[in-house]
């Protein structure tokens, strides 16, 4: 099989890469582009550790082929902070101790950011169902939900 040339936009930058036809977007991000923040927990779309946003929609990058990124816009955890400034979700995850081992954290942050973009004031239940595709084995989710609630409050301009 010969490699496919792909032109795409990742975290706002134009990116070109070569990949095999059967290579996943996650493998391309991790192995070809050095974007190691997306994690492979299962490779079957069950754990959400590789969550990325493709044209505004959360996808498991292990279920997307690298070649499918052609012409699309990809956002990963590496694009979440603006330079030195962490996104409010990133700050709140640290403040609320919403991570223990941290392997699931990039996926949760990417997914939660997408939630707050479509629903700035989600209920606890809406948060829990939106995040149900992201597995965390350490925290029991309590502090993750609280961190998302607190970040949402801050992003809405409410004082915590």
């Amino acid at each position, binding site marked *: 099989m010969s490699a496919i040339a792909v032109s795409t936009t990742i975290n706002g930058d134009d990116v070109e890469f070569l990949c095999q036809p059967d290579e996943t977007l996650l493998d391309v991000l991790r192995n070809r582009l050095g974007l*190691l*923040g997306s*994690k492979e927990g299962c490779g079957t779309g069950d754990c959400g550790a590789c969550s990325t946003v493709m044209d505004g929609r959360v996808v498991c990058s292990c279920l997307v082929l690298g070649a499918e990124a052609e012409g699309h816009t990809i956002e990963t955890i*590496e694009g979440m902070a603006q330079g030195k400034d962490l996104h409010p979700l*990133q700050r709140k995850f640290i403040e609320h*101790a919403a991570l223990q*081992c941290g392997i699931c*954290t990039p996926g949760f942050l990417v997914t939660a950011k997408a939630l707050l973009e479509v629903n700035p004031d989600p209920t606890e239940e809406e948060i829990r169902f939106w995040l149900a595709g*992201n597995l965390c084995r350490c925290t029991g989710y309590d502090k993750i939900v609280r961190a998302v609630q607190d970040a949402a409050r801050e992003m809405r301009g409410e004082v915590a």
Partner: protein
Amino acid sequence: MSFDATFQEKKLKSVGTRPLRPDGVDKVTGRARYGADYNMPGQLVARVLRSPHAHARIVRIDTARAEGLKGVKAVITAADLPDLTNGNAALFAILDNCMARTKALYDGHAVAAVAAIDAKVARAALKLIEVEYEILPHVVDVDAAARPDAPVIDEGIFTSGVEPKPDSPSNVAARSEFGHGDVEAGFAKAEVIVERSYKTEQTHQGYIEPHACVANCNADGTADLWVCTQGHFVYRQNCADLLGLEVSKLRVTSSEIGGGFGGKTHVWAEPVALALSRKAGRPVKLVMSREEVFRASGPTSATSIDVKIGATRDGRITAATSTLRYTSGPYPDTWAEIGAMTSFACYDLENVKTVGFEVVVNRPKVAAYRAPSAPMAAFAVESAIDELAQEIGMDAVELRIKNAAQEGTRASYGPVYGPIGIGPTLDAARVHPHMSAPLGKNQGRGMACGFWFNFGGETCTDLNISADGTVTLAVGTVDVGGSRASLSLIAAEEMGIPYDDIKAVVADTATLGYNDMTDGSRGTFSSSMATISAARNAITVMRERAALMWDIPVEDVYWEEGQAKAAGSKYGNLSPLSVKDIAAEAGNTGGPIAGHSELVADGAGVSFATHICDVEVDPETGATSIVRYTVIQDAGKAVHPSYVEGQYQGGAAQGIGWALNEEYIYGEDGRLQNPGFLDYRIPVCSDLPMIDTQILEIPNPNHPYGVRGVGETSIVPPLAAVANAVSNAAGVRLSHVPISPPRILAALHKQARE
């Protein structure tokens, strides 16, 4: 210098606060590097060939075609990992588990491995390896395996611990017994006796990060290993033993670890990766797939437990027995023995006897899982205690309080307890608002207690003071959930300096002395002890330096609030010297300033918890939802309360998953049918409510700040707490975990028929 670990009551400034964790930014930006996030120049990719059979003799392996494939740089089988274990049965089991030697003992057992230029070539090479198997009869169920007519997995296993010694082999590797008093006499005094049998299914630790490592063996006998592990020093020893390397020439670096829970305390992939690298002469990266993690890495035991408890009508237990059968995978181990030790540890019993049977089965080798063996034993005993309470018409909490172990109680496993926390957790549960909150339709409440031994162990820590007065703290226990934050707090407290002046790192095996595995809830307990010791040693050095700077006797220099101070009015004009002041002059006063510590942290102290759970059971579908959950546990002293709460919540969530959903499902062919997160369902965010926590702080007399381990005990009560709640909600007793919808419906239907 001897270290005084005795608890000293004092006001703590840093310990007990909730600062930001030092590895937080790395982890929220995706920069933290886990097992699979590391690469070496010219590295190869490894893949492992695994047995599709539960039990089969390996007649022949032909690797020639795989070796001939372009891009393949090494193929190994057991022949490339010669037996250097020298009669050490435990080590041989590790070796055989890493790579099957004569027989494949479970579905997923490694039989060969390849290293190739990329994953695609490696996968293709696996298909070219020819393995001829002679399929043997298998057994996976704990009770079936223990029967005399079961296929014998290892002809060399004769039950130990029984008299007379059996003359034929079986799958029951060992019997162990604990207890005291006369249980027959105790049951004779009982007015009510509850006798029940319980089963729990095998679960997996379910860490989100699969096992991953990068190994490099050089021709000069040196080697490097980057790996996600709970104990890089132990991995170094195991790998060195199995590969015949000199220990100090193998440098092991622990990556960030994406969850372990006991499952990353044993080597699997690492010796294989090293052997591949040795053969190929190039670095090798080996990352397990999720399916491999389930099929071949550390599940917990499946169990079958009988419990008998007798009591007088006023609620005093007169005798209790338990018989516990635990699977250990295909190799003998001591999991039932631990279950037997813990089963009645919460109670003050005059007559108690617990018997454990270790059962080998054609399932993966069991690894520790958070308070290993205790949750199943607690499920059985705490379910029976609840039934006893119902039989005599006594409140479940009151019955437990009446029989709870206390200081001076002889534990069911032997020793007499010092000050312990079971009573306080029960007292807190009794008055907790959760206990009296109203319940809705189809809802039920359950509670249960749990016990776990905590450990200490060998620990080594370095504390280096830089020229600007900031401090690097190098520890050798792995940070599994925030311990760099808690250990920085400890160093700040002992030295009297700000938390932000400390940078804690996990040192690799070449730069710090040996540390035991990060298990037994020992990370913060042990390393904090070593950190306090190192800080005290550094303070001793700084007092000497201050004395030199002031030109006064060192005896006149004391340390207070992060400063050297001169004692006595004759030094009234000497301003105190801060760490920064002393560090700035280090070059003139004797060179670098450091505090070192090596010790065996002892006196971890046993740990207890009480959990309260409300559930709602849908009688149509058998589905259970957790409505409310409360964890009450003794922390001794919560160093960073947020991460203590996190341990309580996480353990509870894992226990809830075990109680309601998680189980290994084997087909008739002995193959695992659900090796993925879709079919092996761990709790997701929408499955759980907020999990309330109450931290009790009963100081541990054997730690300077009173700290106890907190990591494991929280998984012990949930199986029983959930089961008791479901049984109360559904009106029918559930005695088989997981209490999945089919089992609840079956129980409801059975009850309706009767």
